[in-house]
């Protein structure tokens, strides 16, 4: 065949490297681990609960692979236990101070109690922030620690201000509020010396959140799965680290399978299938997440970081833990 048409060969298209996430845990091992933790917690009258928590995190972390290397959880049960004790001391103080105050100034109890309750509410965003800081500081990958820059104050300000604004606007401000909080957490997250960055606009977050709410109402909740998939794509595609940007391929169908499968699976087995379901759903989510682009790991250096287990325990008690 005569080569009459000049074929212009494009230079080999540049294929940016893809960093994949995957989960390697298995339900049976997790089940045995939970059973062992339950046993030790029961025979130690609850003392082992802190160690159980650390053990379970260790398992979940070390089963998670990012770009060929596993995460490592370096937190210990002992530090968490000490954290629990500190939280217990705070609770005791909260209970005893009003009683003591009433003793000194009779009738002052309701006022003191009110002030303390307010303080407790203000503590919630701090607990969320410090809990994240603790978890990141105890997470290693490729021998390098993650961390969260100090910034609980601004976070709490955004949290409380945004919360009030959300109440005042009957929830309309909600998506913007959540996006601002997400931006603070992600922009302050670092791996070694390098920071993550989040550039998802409040406008876009509002659009997704608001239409998501409206359509969910109109479709009697069915749209929720599309909303959840959209939101995960939005968050990941606006999250980057050095030259790599996140990508989520989670679809509404995936979301439906994960949510409905988890609920049915646990309900039908009275919770016994729980470990297998955790493994299955985590695997499903991580399989759909990638980071695309160049990362020069040689440029990432180790940095010392702090993190306090008491705030983690507190976050757990306030019910705002990340459920990891």
């Amino acid at each position: 065949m005569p080569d009459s048409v000049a074929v212009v060969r494009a230079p080999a298209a540049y294929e940016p490297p893809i960093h994949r996430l995957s989960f390697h845990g298995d339900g049976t091992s997790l089940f045995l681990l939970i059973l062992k933790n339950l046993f030790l917690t029961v025979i130690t009258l609850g003392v082992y609960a802190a160690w159980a928590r650390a053990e379970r995190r260790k398992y979940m972390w070390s089963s998670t692979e990012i770009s060929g290397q596993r995460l490592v959880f370096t937190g210990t049960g002992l530090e968490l236990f000490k954290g629990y004790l500190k939280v217990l001391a705070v609770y005791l103080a909260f209970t005893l101070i009003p009683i003591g105050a009433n003793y000194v100034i009779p009738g002052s109890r309701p006022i003191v109690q009110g002030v303390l309750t307010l303080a407790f509410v203000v503590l919630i965003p701090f607990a969320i922030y410090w809990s994240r800081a603790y978890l990141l500081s105890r997470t290693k990958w490729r021998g390098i620690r993650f961390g969260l820059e100090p910034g609980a104050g601004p976070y709490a300000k955004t949290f409380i201000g945004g919360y009030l604004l959300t109440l005042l606007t009957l929830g309309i401000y909600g998506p913007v509020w959540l996006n601002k909080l997400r931006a603070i957490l992600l922009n302050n997250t670092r791996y070694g010396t390098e920071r993550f960055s989040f550039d998802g606009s409040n406008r876009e977050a509002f659009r997704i959140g608001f239409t998501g709410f409206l359509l969910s109402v109109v479709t009697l909740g069915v749209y929720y799965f599309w909303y959840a998939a959209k939101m995960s794509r939005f968050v990941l595609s606006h999250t980057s680290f050095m030259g790599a940007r996140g990508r989520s391929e989670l679809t509404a169908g995936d979301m439906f399978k994960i949510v409905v499968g988890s609920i049915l699976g646990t309900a039908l087995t009275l919770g016994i299938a729980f470990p297998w379901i955790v493994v299955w759903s985590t695997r499903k989510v991580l399989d759909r997440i990638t980071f695309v682009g160049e990362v020069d790991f040689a440029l990432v250096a180790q940095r010392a970081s702090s993190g306090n287990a008491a705030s983690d325990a507190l976050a757990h008690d306030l019910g705002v833990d990340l459920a990891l």
Partner: protein
Amino acid sequence: MLPEAGDRESGFRAEWMDGSSGRAHAVYISPLPDRLLVRSEEGTELEPWMLEGLHVEPLPGGVLHLTHGAHPGALLSSVDPRLREVLEAAGAASRRPAARSLVARAVFYAATVAGAVALFLAVLPAMSAAIARRVPLSIEEQLALPVNKLLQSRYCASADSRRALVTLAESLRLAGDPEFTGARFEIVDLAMVNAFTFPGGSIVVTRGLLDDAQSPEELAGVLAHELEHVARRHVMAQVVRSVILTTGWQLTVGDFAGLMAIDPSTMLEIASRSFSRDAEKEADEGATRRLRHAGFSTRGLSDFFARMEGSTDFVPEWLSTHPASAERRKAIAESGPADPPRVAAMPDPDWKAIKGACSGRRGVDPHLEKLLGAGNR
């Protein structure tokens, strides 16, 4: 990318991270009797890792992490299954437990946990009752404040009805009953047929119950039952129990509660309903004792239960806070003859005052009634 299993000069492929940068270097590990030789891809020899002090951590999915105190921060990661076998043989890594011993262990754990939970549930009622008895009355009275606030606007009583109710309650008291200073006896404007005991020894009877009651003896029976709850400090015991149960739940499986479809509080609720049924039985027994002591007939109480049978016994007993009405009536009958009254429970004018206490008020508050729905009857 993960290194593949393959050797170069008889080494196992691995990745070496020094802990100061995020770079992962491809290396080959060659085990010697006392150390691991670590060679880079180019053949450069790195510092060897001694077997002594080597920490081997097998991760899910066949990855091996090696760390060593002499190489702080450094990490060797390999997916070659042969490396683990070699390290096991050299005694540097602990051997995997056999599947059979894993099953045996799992069965042992499960049996112990089940046994401990059963034991715990068995001693819980006695334990919480004992703790409740030691809680000072003044502390229990503090818990009463929010309840009073909730119901205050619905109390309906004339001076006569209030006096009559207090007199009836006084005649049903026994020596040794707790002396709550702020205890109140109130009639509340609610349509439901019920009576409640609240923290601090207060007893509230609904308008619906008074409309339904056929005789002062029936009211006396109900009041005697509630007074027994007060005497046994059942309310405080319930508070103590729920604190113990929720703490126990939080400590053991609380981490997963958010992901569980069967709401754990439902299970706690079912468990605590069985305790509640036991408490009701105790209160019924105490009520007949109180009625006989006061010289009243116990027939009022059994008549009341007989009428309740139709309206309450459609709920399976194990789901209910109370024993079935038919059972309760039978238990009263078995406790002794319904001796003819030596004394009438109250004079006629008093009974009229009580029956008419809420006249003219017919408030409906579905929210409040729902809230009190599972209360003491």
